[in-house]
């Protein structure tokens, strides 16, 4: 059992013939203290899923169990209390334009009926935490996107929730501001022991801060697991397509007029095996000549791994055995031009 358990969740918009099935049976479990990422193409149902977590959207069937309590069975009043344990931030920030930064952060506490003195103290604490203490009296319209999202985060954390929900929280921000907001999410998560569920289109958000990831397509979770595993050994087509952003799988050697003569092979060196002289070992053992077309180091959540693109020439049988051998060393090997070589 995780902190959040989603069981058989479905959501239809509309009824009858016009109904749209946005979620078609999603099972997910989010552990306390992790950052769980959800990725998928537009319309896959990511927003619907996260909005079911605080019941901004009422599921059609299935259960959402948060901290042992079934949200789908709660009354309106119970739900309002439960929502105070979950902060949410949005792509377009959704700040109250008529309130100052400080009063925006105060809002959830006013709603909860906390005392003025309490609220003032907590607001200053939170603004310090997100680095906006000097903007307490400013109005949202006077802030940059990144600053607005910081206010959004401070507001989401006002009632000391256990869970932070982020629906494309960095999609409206430039890459540098995205980095700083991700850094902030990571640090408040560590500081306050939060559990974070975040949704994004952006691969880099996942590789930067997520522990685990779910890939969604057409209302279903098609693949999930630790980010490093899903990224280095994607099984589903959608995952592969996403991961291309981080690990280029495309054969762009053609761009400089190179025509591969053998097996175009991509090898991922994950962790320790990177130190072994794999390539020379391959040359020694098999009758093949690897031509190194590309090699670089990439990171997933601070964990480095190497990517190498080889043109493996030799007899087809030898090439195949060389690939088998590399796989046996626990390297992730993919042949990109398998068609010609059968």
């Amino acid at each position, binding site marked *: 059992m995780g902190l959040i358990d989603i069981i058989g969740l479905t959501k239809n918009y509309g009824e009858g013939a016009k109904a749209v099935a946005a979620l078609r049976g999603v099972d997910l479990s989010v552990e306390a203290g992790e950052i769980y990422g959800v990725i998928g193409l537009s319309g896959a149902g990511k927003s619907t899923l996260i909005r079911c977590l605080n019941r901004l959207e009422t599921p059609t069937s299935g259960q959402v169990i948060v901290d042992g309590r079934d949200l789908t069975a709660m009354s309106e009043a119970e739900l309002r209390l439960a929502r*105070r344990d*979950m902060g949410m931030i949005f792509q377009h920030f959704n700040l109250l334009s*008529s309130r100052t930064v400080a009063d925006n952060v105060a809002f959830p506490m006013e709603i909860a009926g906390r005392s003025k003195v309490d609220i003032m103290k907590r607001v200053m604490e939170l603004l310090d935490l997100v680095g906006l203490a000097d903007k307490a009296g400013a109005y949202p319209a006077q802030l940059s996107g990144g600053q607005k999202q910081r206010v959004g985060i401070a507001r989401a954390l006002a009632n000391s929730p256990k869970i932070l929900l982020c629906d494309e929280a960095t999609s409206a921000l430039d890459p540098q501001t995205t980095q700083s907001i991700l850094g902030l999410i990571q640090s408040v998560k560590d500081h306050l022991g939060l559990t974070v569920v975040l949704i994004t289109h952006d691969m880099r958000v996942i590789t930067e801060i997520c522990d685990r990831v779910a890939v969604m397509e057409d209302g279903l979770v098609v693949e999930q697991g630790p980010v490093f595993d899903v990224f280095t050994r994607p099984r589903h087509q959608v995952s592969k397509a996403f991961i291309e952003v981080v690990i280029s799988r495309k054969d762009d050697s053609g761009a400089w007029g190179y025509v591969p003569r053998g097996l175009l092979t991509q090898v991922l060196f994950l962790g320790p095996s990177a130190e072994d002289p794999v390539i020379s070992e391959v040359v020694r053992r098999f009758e093949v000549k690897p031509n190194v077309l590309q090699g670089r180091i990439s990171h997933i959540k601070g964990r480095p791994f190497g990517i190498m693109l080889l043109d493996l020439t030799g007899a087809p049988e030898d090439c195949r055995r060389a690939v088998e051998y590399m796989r046996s060393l626990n390297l992730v090997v993919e042949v990109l031009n398998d068609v010609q070589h059968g």
Partner: protein
Amino acid sequence: MFSTGSNLWLMIWPASWETIYMVSIATVVTTLLGVPLGVVLVVTRQGHIMANKLVNRLVGLPVNFIRAIPFPIFILFVIPITRVLTGTSIGPNGVIVPLSLAAIVFMARLAETAMLEVPYGVIEAAISAGANRRQIIWHVLLPEAGSGLILSVTILVVTLIGYSAMAGLVGGGGLGDLAVRYGYYRYRADVMWVCVIILSFVVQALQNFGEALARKYNRR
């Protein structure tokens, strides 16, 4: 015989007070009833916090119905209601009732438009924070629409001044009525001119004041 000058101001003063009396009472009544009605029109819309097709239709229907009736006809039409509410159907008090009734639905639509400007995402943020419906209306919808509502009330007052001129129909009095009676029927161009100048000056001043106030509260 009175001199023209004193005669003129003896007519203008009471008429001015009649206008102020009618318009200010109608403004207060209309705002107090029209804005809540506007809130109902907004929150019962599809996908809003108290979505309810039936209530939305039921409230929207008379709103559109009253707006469709020309005001002079409406004054005559509601005379029975006016009698019940104010005990008379003539004079300034006889005008306030039809004026307010017609303006309430006008105000409801203006307020609705102002509140529809509030992005629904902001309301969702409040819902996620655990706000109930009352809190959303009082702490989100109304303050966020504040600037637009101030402009709506400005338009309301200006419109009420214009409509109060038709009060002559039931002997309501006021500057507009004076201008029509003396300026048109009795060929007193001076009376008409003074009324027109005062009215346009007041309307312009109110418009400027309302816009300045709305700007002050607009933080977007």
